[in-house]
């Protein structure tokens, strides 16, 4: 191969191929090292990181649902300093393109985490988790209010020259207005979608299954929603999109690209098949060759009318 150009520039984030692994589904990269060559992944988006360490939600934290799963991890993470000092160096040594995923309780906190990352080398871009539905004080408010979205993005942009990629919550009525707010705040690209809020009930115990009651739905079950939202945003907002939500194979990835995603992310699919990112990269390359296309870019938005 090598006849096609697989590289993608996502709002300043240079990726060797358009396939990223999604935050919270790939740990800090090392966990899957014996199942996939992590150096060949377009970008590794690491677990959501906060200013202070967080111990996460009480279990059960995950539950399988038809063609999907619910999770309420609660942003368990060691805090930004420990992440940078102890987790990042090993990944940097592998030469992986690393994207940080950050979450905060306030606009100031987002700005502060960003400043800390900006003073450190090794991070290629910042994905803003403004949509995590799990932490009561955290994400939800930011991602559902266009004014707050704009404020957060603006504050973060002031602290860094790294590409800033807000990750949009699908738990909103009008995704386009949120995407526009992110653009107006200075976003370099958009990531979409995060999980859809849901729940499950244990009828024997007459209680919610998850310790946190609500959790985020991911996996193939959410793919149609993700496609619809990306389609809508692609039409109205002129920013590159990192698209994901239930991608399990090359055909899924092509659907996302054809509704406007310049690059794609794999989340729950990693749990099912740890080498999926690599398989999809190869699948996309093969597709381009067969179609006589020179680059992924030629397909982006192909199905948008």
């Amino acid at each position, binding site marked *: 191969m090598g006849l096609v150009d697989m590289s993608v520039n996502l709002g300043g984030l240079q990726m060797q191929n358009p396939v990223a692994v999604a935050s*919270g*589904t*790939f*740990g800090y990269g090392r*966990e*899957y*090292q*014996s*199942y996939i060559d992590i150096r060949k992944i377009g970008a590794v988006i690491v*677990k959501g990181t906060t200013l202070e360490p967080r*111990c*996460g939600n*009480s*279990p*059960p*934290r*995950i*539950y*399988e649902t*038809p*063609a*999907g*799963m619910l*999770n309420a*991890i609660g942003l*368990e993470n060691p805090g930004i300093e420990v992440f940078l000092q102890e987790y990042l160096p090993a990944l940097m040594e592998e030469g992986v393109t690393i994207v940080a995923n950050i979450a905060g309780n306030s606009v100031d906190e987002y700005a502060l985490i960003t400043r800390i990352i900006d003073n450190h080398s090794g991070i290629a871009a910042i994905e803003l988790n403004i949509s995590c539905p799990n932490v009561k004080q955290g994400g939800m408010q930011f991602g559902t209010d266009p004014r707050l979205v704009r404020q957060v993005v603006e504050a973060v942009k002031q602290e860094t020259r790294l590409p800033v990629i807000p990750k949009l919550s699908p738990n909103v009525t009008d995704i386009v207005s949120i995407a526009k707010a992110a653009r107006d705040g200075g976003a370099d690209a958009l990531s979409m979608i995060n999980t859809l809020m849901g729940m499950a009930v244990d009828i024997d115990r007459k209680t919610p299954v998850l310790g946190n009651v609500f959790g985020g739905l991911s*996996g*193939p079950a959410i793919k149609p929603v993700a496609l619809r939202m990306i389609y809508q945003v692609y039409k109205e907002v002129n920013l590159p999109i990192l698209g994901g939500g239930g991608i*399990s194979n090359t055909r899924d990835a092509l659907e996302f690209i054809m509704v406007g995603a310049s690059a794609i992310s794999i989340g*729950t699919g*990693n*749990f*099912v*098949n*740890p*080498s999926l990112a690599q398989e999809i990269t190869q699948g996309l390359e093969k597709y381009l060759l067969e179609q006589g296309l020179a680059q992924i870019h030629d397909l982006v938005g192909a199905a948008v009318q």
Partner: protein
Amino acid sequence: MPACSSGIVRSNKKVGPDLWEMEFTALALAREAQPGQFVHIRVGGNQDPLLRRPLSIYDVDAGLITLLYKVVGRGTEILSLYSSDQPLDVMGPLGKGFSLVQDRRVLLVGGGVGIAPLLFLGRELKVRNNKVIVLHGAGSKEETCSGPKFTGLGMEYRIATMDGSLGFKGLVTDLMEREIDPKSIDYIYTCGPEPMMEAVAAFAARNNMPGELSLEEYMACGVGACLGCARKLKASDPSYVKICHDGPVFPLDSVNIAP
């Protein structure tokens, strides 16, 4: 780090009510496997059920891995339909297994299908010159297919059935309290329902006996990446362990089963 993601089914047969035994070959997995570790299997290959299913390694012998599983839902039901020569999508070996003592007098207590990891453990313990007594709790004698495997490896195997159809009638932990002289045991390993392991842990604590147990939790990734299989070993612990990565095996005294 060892890894395997494919195997070939060699046999898959019913060995009791809802109880199945599957043998498959997977060379790297068989070479690397330690007692107490598990494999993570994608059953069926469709999007539903989506996630892999964790199963303990029941035995490893000459490149052949054996699983003992109970059909409790859709995933295990689909697994029971696999036939010889079919490829098996399997990750592993995963998790941290049992530590292996040497030259000791060891007690293994297994409840139900929790007996699974104890066979491979017993095999390796025998190699290390331990005297091994196995106590197995089951519903009825139909669920005690593993007995001859333990005795075949030179372990002493005693059975408790709830219906009294074989061996002691009642709970395996009652059998333990009644027949095991704590002074005759140096180390204890257990796997099974949590109330059973709680009673074993209490027995061990009362007699100052060290040991290990194996825990279960719902899993997604199986490798420590999703943080889904979290559990506090003791209610007072500040943080959660991940059963798939920090366990499934833990020291008996590190866990407080009923907080």
